[in-house]
């Protein structure tokens, strides 16, 4: 049941959402490049990480493989750790001593 191809209208919607989310990640990358302060860039990278989590879930729906939901969980964990680490690094300077 989980490996059958999705209905055509669902596949169209998922592909449209994938395109939109990828474009939104590119727009958030503008804030990463042009953000005036370092926390601006961190916020932009956090938004990109959350978008990539959504992309992984959409890809799981598109291909019918439930494994990619787990992949999105791992991506969410990595994004959270990266955000917290950078937020501590810009103030204290050293994380691993």
């Amino acid at each position, binding site marked *: *049941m*989980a490996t059958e191809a*999705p*209905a055509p*209208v*669902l596949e169209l*919607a*998922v592909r*449209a*959402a994938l395109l*939109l*989310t990828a474009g*939104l990640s590119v*727009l*958030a990358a*503008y*804030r990463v490049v042009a*953000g005036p*302060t*370092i*926390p*601006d860039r*961190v*916020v*932009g990278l*956090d*938004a990109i990480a*959350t*978008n990539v*989590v*959504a992309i992984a*879930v*959409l890809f*799981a*729906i598109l291909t019918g493989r*439930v494994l990619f*939901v*787990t992949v*999105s*969980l791992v991506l*969410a*964990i990595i*994004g*959270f750790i990266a*955000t*917290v680490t950078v*937020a*501590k690094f*810009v*103030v204290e300077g050293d994380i691993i001593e």
Partner: protein
Amino acid sequence: MAATLTTWIEIALIAVGAFFLTVGTIGLLRFPNVYNRMHATSKPTTLGTATVFLAGFVHFGPGDGLPALVGIAFLFLTVPTGAHMIARSAKRMGIPFESNVTWPELPGTPEDDEDD
């Protein structure tokens, strides 16, 4: 008939999630301040990604789709924590607020910019 109903529910959830992600990114691009941008990204992207997770749960059913619910709980725990860490770091770096915004200096609150 049940399969088509599931399909339409999924499409509606994906549309709502894409809408929230779009709103969050527009806020990230348009707001003037790092605190405002954080406010714009953390809440709508959390809601949007949680809605997409919910679509995945509807797609895979209650057996296989259980990691999607775990993902929703994880997002609601971690995204506010990360935003709070970034906000505190930005305050300690001395990034100014908007002109009429003040940091609450309540009695009993630990001094925020102490050296450690």
